[in-house]
């Protein structure tokens, strides 16, 4: 099923995708319960996720907390080891590449996180922070590193002199610019953006999103964008995957998804999204209950305990991945 999904997604584009995630599973063992009756449970953070990220394109993963979107990103960054499934970079599996290629991969894939301050050392100047990824490439000497850091700072709208400042001398929005400068300093191909604007003020958010968009237009970066705010996702992306409890529920071209959400979970997310205007009335799909625990995922379709349209079959059979439109797939028994 998942291979079919990956192939289907591949057909839509020409040539091998830059990044292909194929039936990715990431499980963790967690110990739960009282001291003497402690049990080891399997937490299925990512439970069969497939998607492609194409050159110069933004692929967004949207979902609520605990749906596995960040774990997916961490697996792509090679921070988490997949339990099964594969991640292919330009057609080659990340498990097969040797140390030297891994190094090249690590400088080709960079990341920007929600809170830039926690990833900076408060005692080191930001120049050091920005040039750290360049240390992977031993042919770049100290002077060139500094020049690159200055160039990167200017590209993100800061001054070259800021290279000698400390993290605390920047405001929240400027710090996120510094984090972006670090990400682009090694001329990467793919940047993973994990909730990059969630902690910023509304007026600053727009600045950072516009910056990311223009950098993409000028330099052709690909983004793997992780967010929970639907407006942000619509603004940033070409393709969107909707995740719930470790699995992709719907995958579609962005405008198609926002115009025609198919999966009940996506519809529920849209219903719950705060309106842009008081007169906006949304389609009314409300989920019951809370999210199930990732250590105890319901059988059949994992949404059936909350879904307002659940049928008997939903609690028994995991739905197949179906194409419901051009560049639009969903996994639901309704279709």
């Amino acid at each position: 099923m998942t291979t079919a999904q990956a192939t289907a997604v591949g057909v839509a584009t020409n040539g091998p995708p830059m990044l292909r995630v194929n039936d990715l599973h990431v499980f963790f063992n967690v110990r739960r319960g009282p001291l003497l009756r402690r049990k080891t449970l399997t937490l299925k953070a990512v439970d069969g996720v497939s998607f492609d990220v194409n050159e110069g394109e933004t692929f967004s993963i949207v979902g609520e907390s605990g749906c596995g979107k960040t774990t997916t990103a961490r697996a792509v960054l090679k921070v988490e080891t997949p339990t099964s499934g594969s991640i292919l970079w330009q057609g080659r599996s990340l498990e097969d590449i040797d140390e030297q290629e891994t190094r090249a991969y690590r400088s080709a894939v960079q990341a920007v996180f929600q809170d830039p301050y926690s990833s900076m050392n408060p005692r080191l100047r930001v120049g050091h922070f920005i040039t750290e990824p360049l240390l992977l490439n031993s042919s770049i000497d100290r002077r060139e590193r500094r020049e690159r850091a200055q160039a990167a700072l200017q590209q993100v709208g800061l001054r070259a002199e800021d290279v000698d400042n400390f993290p605390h001398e920047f405001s929240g929005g400027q710090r996120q610019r510094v984090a972006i400068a670090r990400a682009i300093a090694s001329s990467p191909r793919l940047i993973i953006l994990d909730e990059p604007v969630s902690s910023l003020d509304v007026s600053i958010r727009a600045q950072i999103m516009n910056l990311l968009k223009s950098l993409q237009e000028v330099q052709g970066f690909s983004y793997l964008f992780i967010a929970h705010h639907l407006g942000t996702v619509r603004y940033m992306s070409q393709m969107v995957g909707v995740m719930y409890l470790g699995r992709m529920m719907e995958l579609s071209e962005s405008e198609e998804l926002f115009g025609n959400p198919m999966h009940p979970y996506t519809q529920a997310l849209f219903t719950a999204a705060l309106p842009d205007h008081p007169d906006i009335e949304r389609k009314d799909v409300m989920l019951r209950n809370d999210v199930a625990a990732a250590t105890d995922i319901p059988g059949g379709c994992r949404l059936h305990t909350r879904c307002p349209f659940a049928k008997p079959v939903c609690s028994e059979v995991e739905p197949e991945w179906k194409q419901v439109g051009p560049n639009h797939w969903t996994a639901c028994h309704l279709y």
Partner: protein
Amino acid sequence: MVDLKSVKLDAGAPNISLWPGNAIAHDNVRGSQWAAKSNCKSNKCLGRLWVALLEVTDLRTHLTSRRGVNRAVKGVGFKLDTGKSLGIVGESGSGKSMTALSILRLVPQPYARIVGGSIRFDGEELLEKSEREMRRIRGGSIAIILQDPIASLNPVFSIGYQIAESVRIHQRLSGEAQLAKVVESLRRVRVPSPEARVRDYPHQFSGGMRQRVVGAIAIACQPKLLIADEATTALDTTIQAQYLDLLRTLQRELNLALLFITHDFGIIARMCDDVAVMYAGRIVEYAAVREIFNRPAHPYTVALLEAVPKVDIRVDRLHAIPGAPSSGYVEHPGCPFAPRCTFAIQQCHVAPPPLTTVAPGHTAECFRAQEVYAGAHRHQDSTDASARAGA
């Protein structure tokens, strides 16, 4: 109380008065309309003057630190009536939370001090109350729900005990009556099987349910005013929607006045009757919710609304506001938004902007409010059309 000399009640003509002289709220015109509509039960009738449930006038709260004095709230005024909801929207540092905390007199003393103004609640002046009297009001007739339920709940007491605490203190109930009250408020916030869950501890609840428990504590003593300070910011999208629906139901059932403090215009659009937009410690614009979205009259409101990426329409380029929000440490001779404002003229940098009434119940502190209001009106027609075309 309210300086009626500077209030012009003829709604049609532009009403201009200069601050800092203007001690009155932005909503002076609406105040009279409300009074006409609302029934006598919900208002205190003082002679011939109608008084809203909550009237904040010229509130000033200062924070002192080693960096100097941060004028967090610089003369804020508004009214809120029973059964109504008012949203205060602003970015971090705009003074919106300090305004909420000032109403409960919960500002972090001694760094923070309410240095002036008046807060009249239910006909009584809160700033003149003793600490003992304030304790009776907090959690009694005014309740607050904060952002983080984990921080609001004590992990070592059962939630039943924590809800009972306010019932015991404010209503002096005990035993059966107390338990009944606790179960009733849990039922009101739609916690499933409340009789069984009163003995559970906070860690046994999910994030959304925990925030409901905080809600149960807040409504346990039938408050008249409920303040929600970023109450749903930490919740997931679908849980947030459930919680906002719950707050709206509670408001109807208990006839609450709701004061929403938020940075999110979406919450405002969904929940509020009236909106106050705050910037640098001032309410820069005040209007009914549709007015704010359809015809903003302050350049800051216009810019903020255009900076938010939309769920319902495709936007190709967001209009970012240049620069960063103003800090309360900096004194501006003119308008604090002027350095970031695309409408700014020379005057804006030197003199404080006047409070301008652009329509009945719609005020903005801006020299060019009339122009912005007129322009925004035209602009809205085009976006309306495109929104319809998109849908």
